[in-house]
């Protein structure tokens, strides 16, 4: 069921800063399971699921819905379009990819000016070869990579947009499980690739008793990788520290105790170079208790981020176990 959901989310384009199609797909999919919808000026989608009876508190859950994109800035060399890059992928990582316009569906291939060394490639050397002059996108339109989701032995999954679609699938599934004793505000966050811009605004808009991010973290278990705490298949990575925040012990303990009680194997995410949306959430308003759980991913910044589906399911289960404890916020 989650696999089908992931495929559904994967089939739409979610360029950072232009997440319209993702919002529509999520709203269509979740439909009546959500009590209240809203969208803000950054493009964040808010989905509120109210408690069965009296609310025991407000829990903000965020998942990024955007992926790296190219934005068209010049069309005077048709059918070649000049672009800028948005998001974490280096300009050179786009070379040779097939891309698709998120508004018109037009497809093209990324070319690069000749005589440029690959280490010197910037966005200004790239172009989208639209091949035909048929439908010309307007300046400001977005393109994202077209790469199918690939399953490996039905357990492992890879694809470039997984780092947002897996968190979105987990958040969707949590919201679909129905009411708890909390007011759950699910935020499908926009512009996460650009430095937590959506989350920053969402942190102000929602006054929550606890904010938790559902994101991904790099598994550092490959040859000669930098030393790290997280490995693929090691279970959900409960955030302890990243570049933007150190998680309060009580927030981390709520998650680790839940995992132990539910017999979910977990690991701790300690990665002082990676960024997340949690850092801006905990600094919003007059400060908000915040933490997160991340799905381990290998090769997050390359063509084929790879995940272990067992980690994905266990991450979802950890959230569900937490949300079905009616009293845990009172111990904060």
């Amino acid at each position, binding site marked *: 069921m989650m696999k089908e959901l992931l495929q559904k989310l994967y089939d739409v384009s979610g360029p*950072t*800063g*232009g997440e319209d199609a993702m919002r529509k797909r999520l709203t269509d999919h979740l439909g009546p399971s959500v009590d209240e919808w809203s969208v*803000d*000026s*950054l493009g*964040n989608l808010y989905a509120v699921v109210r408690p069965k009876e009296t609310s025991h508190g407000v829990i903000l859950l965020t998942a990024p819905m955007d992926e790296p994109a190219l*934005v068209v*800035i*010049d069309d*005077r*060399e048709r059918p070649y379009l*000049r672009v*800028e*890059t*948005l998001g974490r992928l280096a300009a050179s990582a786009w070379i040779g990819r097939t891309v698709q316009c998120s508004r018109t569906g037009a497809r093209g291939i990324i070319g690069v000016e000749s005589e440029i060394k690959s280490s010197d490639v910037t*966005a*200004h050397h790239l172009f989208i070869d639209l091949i035909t002059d048929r439908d010309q996108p307007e*300046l*400001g339109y977005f393109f994202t990579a077209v790469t199918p989701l690939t399953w490996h032995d039905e357990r492992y999954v890879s694809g470039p947009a997984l780092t947002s679609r897996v968190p979105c699938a987990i958040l969707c599934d949590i919201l679909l499980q129905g009411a708890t004793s909390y007011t759950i505000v699910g935020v499908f966050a926009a*512009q996460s690739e*650009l430095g937590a*811009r959506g989350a*920053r*605004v969402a942190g*102000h*808009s929602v006054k929550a008793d606890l904010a938790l991010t559902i994101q991904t973290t790099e598994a550092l278990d490959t040859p000669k990788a930098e030393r790290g705490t997280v490995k693929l298949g090691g279970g959900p990575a409960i955030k302890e520290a990243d570049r933007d925040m150190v998680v309060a012990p009580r927030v981390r303990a709520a998650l680790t105790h839940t995992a132990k009680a539910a017999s979910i194997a977990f690991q701790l995410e300690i990665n002082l170079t990676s960024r997340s949306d949690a850092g801006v959430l905990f600094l919003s308003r007059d400060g908000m208790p915040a933490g997160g759980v991340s799905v381990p991913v290998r090769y997050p910044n390359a063509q084929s981020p790879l995940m272990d589906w067992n980690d994905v399911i266990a991450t979802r289960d950890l959230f569900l176990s937490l949300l079905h404890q009616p009293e845990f916020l009172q111990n904060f």
Partner: protein
Amino acid sequence: MLLKELTEAFGPSGFEGEVRDLIRREATPFAERITTDTLGSLIVEKNLQQNGPKVLLAAHMDEVSFMIVGIEENGLLRFRPIGGVDPRILVSKVLLVGSKRISGVIGAKAIHLQKPEERKKPLGLSQLFIDIGASTKAEAESHVAIGDTAVFATRYEEYGDRRAKAKSFDDRVGCAILLEALKEDIKLPLVAAFTVQEEIGLRGAGPVAFRTKPDFAIVLEGTVCFDVVDAPAHGESTILGAGPALTLVDSRTVAHRPFRAYVKQVAEENGIPVQMRRVKGGSNDNGIIHLTEGGIVATSISVPVRYIHAPVQSVHLDDVQNAYRLLISVLRGLEKGGFPG
């Protein structure tokens, strides 16, 4: 428009007092309330009781400039830039230094004294100094102190075909347009904010947006224009004389697409030329305004400025006029509920 007086005023980031005083003097007859906030931004409000969406118009007062950080025994001054300046453009430029606005010239080792390898490298900040005509440290100290600031000494002048040059079109051109707009009878609650410290990280505009809580924001800017030599078409950003530029993306903002589309439509309906800003680099106050509190619907209207962040900046006066016409047309449209938000 008050282009000459505004561009010649002295306004390093953090030292915008002279510009602020000038703007306050000019804005007072048209304002219902004028406030200077904690950071120094000037907030001019009009039509406070008017129904309709509150619109924040913002232009920054500060300019790229310099700070004196040392005085040598021989009376020469060491300095550092405030804001982004390419050190390669500095040698031999004339500055106005300190509260007395004394003249200084940026000097460096003469070409015949430079070693062959030195000649191949651009001069860095540590090889440059400001010469204010003092022969000793004591003499220099009677005119300037460490912490004083300096700006380029360029005077405003019109030249060629509707061109003008000055030291600080970024962003006094925006200030001039806002001041002019205050004279119009617009039936909307309006906030014209003249912000501080934009050049060193968009610092002033966030507190202004937080304080005024607008429904919409429009940033008036001078923006990069490199339609001259050796630039590929997609590297020129904007074209001088082709009209005000609307932002697609910059380094701090992905533009709110519906609001930009509305501004573009208003331009077309009124026969005002516009162009898209075709580069991601650079940013303006919108970068912080649109992220304020729960998010603010915002856009930028930018005047192309050739040789921006350099001693002599150049604009086309038609672009300035068209940016003003576009701003007024958009406000008239918002007055009629043309963009529901």
